[in-house]
């Protein structure tokens, strides 16, 4: 489904954030990336849909190398990759419904989008998704009137509206309280599994990762140091990933 080959990224020459990352993501299942802050987890996720441009390497998705695309082909590729953000990144002043429909912007001409004339199928699907994420009746609320957990549900729904082949999630629960974090992870897992969409998710909470992921990738200093099922994630391994014994207590 997604193959990253020799992916490297340096924001400042000489100080690479990602070094020779090689990952193959299968067409189903939840893959969690864990690691300390600044080890390049977020950069890696953002390289996949080219919100960040890699310095070198290949991003093979759906038969094309995303690293080499630009303009319209890149946009077309992005349509198939949905993303959930740490700070929800909803358009605050638009309603929940408009935020959901913005997931279809890659498929609708700008003129129709401006006039809010979306196809009836999209609207029907939007209402269904609202029910799935537990926000029935919220279609006309403004996004800035929602709580954090509700906003992230909208974020998930927006990403799923794209009918993507891959879901990316950049620390989707970092801004939420522990209980809501679990609810959101459960929702994300449920939606992904029922629709057979693979998920590549960036997490800072190791327990959540162990609980929900089928596969865990550990990063340290821009390199992959662990790649396997959560059961193999020993304390010794975690120390390698995060460095230092102290925090495990």
């Amino acid at each position: 489904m997604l193959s990253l080959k020799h992916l490297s990224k340096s924001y400042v020459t000489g100080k690479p954030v990602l070094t020779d990352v090689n990952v193959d993501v299968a067409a189903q299942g939840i893959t969690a990336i864990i690691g300390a802050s600044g080890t390049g987890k977020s950069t890696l996720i953002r390289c996949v849909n080219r919100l960040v441009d890699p310095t070198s390497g290949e991003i093979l998705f759906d038969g094309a190398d995303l690293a080499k695309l630009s303009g319209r082909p890149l946009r077309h590729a992005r349509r198939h990759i949905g993303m959930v953000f740490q700070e929800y990144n909803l358009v605050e002043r638009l309603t929940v419904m408009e935020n959901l429909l913005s997931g279809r912007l890659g498929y609708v001409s700008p003129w129709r989008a401006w006039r809010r004339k979306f196809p009836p199928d999209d609207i029907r699907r939007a209402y269904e998704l609202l029910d799935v994420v537990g926000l029935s009746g919220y279609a006309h609320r403004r996004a800035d009137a929602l709580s954090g957990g509700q906003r992230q549900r909208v974020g998930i729904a927006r990403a799923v509206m794209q009918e993507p082949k891959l879901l990316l999630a950049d620390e989707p629960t970092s801004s939420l309280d522990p209980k809501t974090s679990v609810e959101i992870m459960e929702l994300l897992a449920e939606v992904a599994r029922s629709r057979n969409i693979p998920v590549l998710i960036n997490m800072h909470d190791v327990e959540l990762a162990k609980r929900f992921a089928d596969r865990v990738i550990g990063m340290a200093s821009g390199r992959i140091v662990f790649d396997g099922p959560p059961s193999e994630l020993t304390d010794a391994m975690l120390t390698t990933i995060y460095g230092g014994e102290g925090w495990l207590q």
Partner: protein
Amino acid sequence: MAATAAPPAARPVAPVGERVWRRFTAGQRLARFAVYLVIVAAIVVSIQSVEIIPEFLYDAPEQMVDLFSRMWPMDWAHYPDTVHDALIETIHIASLGTLLSLVMAMPVGILAAHNLVPSTPLNLLAKLILVSSRSVNSLVWALLFVGIFGPGALAGTLAIAFRSIGFVGKLFGEALEEAQPGPIEALTAAGAPWISRMTFGYWPQVKPAFWSIALFRWDINVRESAVLGLVGAGGIGMALDSALNLFQWERVAVILAAIFAVVIIAELIVTQVRKRVL
């Protein structure tokens, strides 16, 4: 407290069975359409009925080049005798006018604030005074005062003052209306009389806003004072008026440059004061 959300009953309702989504209700769409219609109609009617002579429009670039060529070289020698004193006078007009307006605007601003003076007729009267003050340009006020007091800086100062009442009063009134009711409540509960509630409850809260408004208005007034002399109300405008009447474009250029310089200096002063004091 003004409502900021859409009125409660105005949500488009999706009929059961067929999911239709509309961004706005029929009533909202009608209102928006009405505004668009009025705007387009106004523009079309204006274009048709405004009297523009096309030849003058085509002539314009040539005329502007002619104008600038007459302005250059600028007559700097003219500066010391007339322009400098007039500039200083302009600054005095702006400053005195602003100070006077602060004194006059405060009571009106207080009258306009509903949370201080709960009488709606008084609020409306105060708001009427403020709107009238703002609707009449400082230039027109200057005309009036030149009629009363004769030409000179006195007319200019009063014109600036009376025009600024509306500005200062409106913003001051808004600052008062936004004051937090908590401290006032505490003072009322302690039995403080109205004056004390003002000085201890409202004034500390609005003081920074007040000085910011005063500074803002002074800045604008420096710009306004420069042109009042065109109708005889003192300041650099009078030198500008004579130079224009005599078609002495090089002097006009010097005067405009001087005005520009003073405006820039005033902006710098205001920025510095804001940074250090406010």
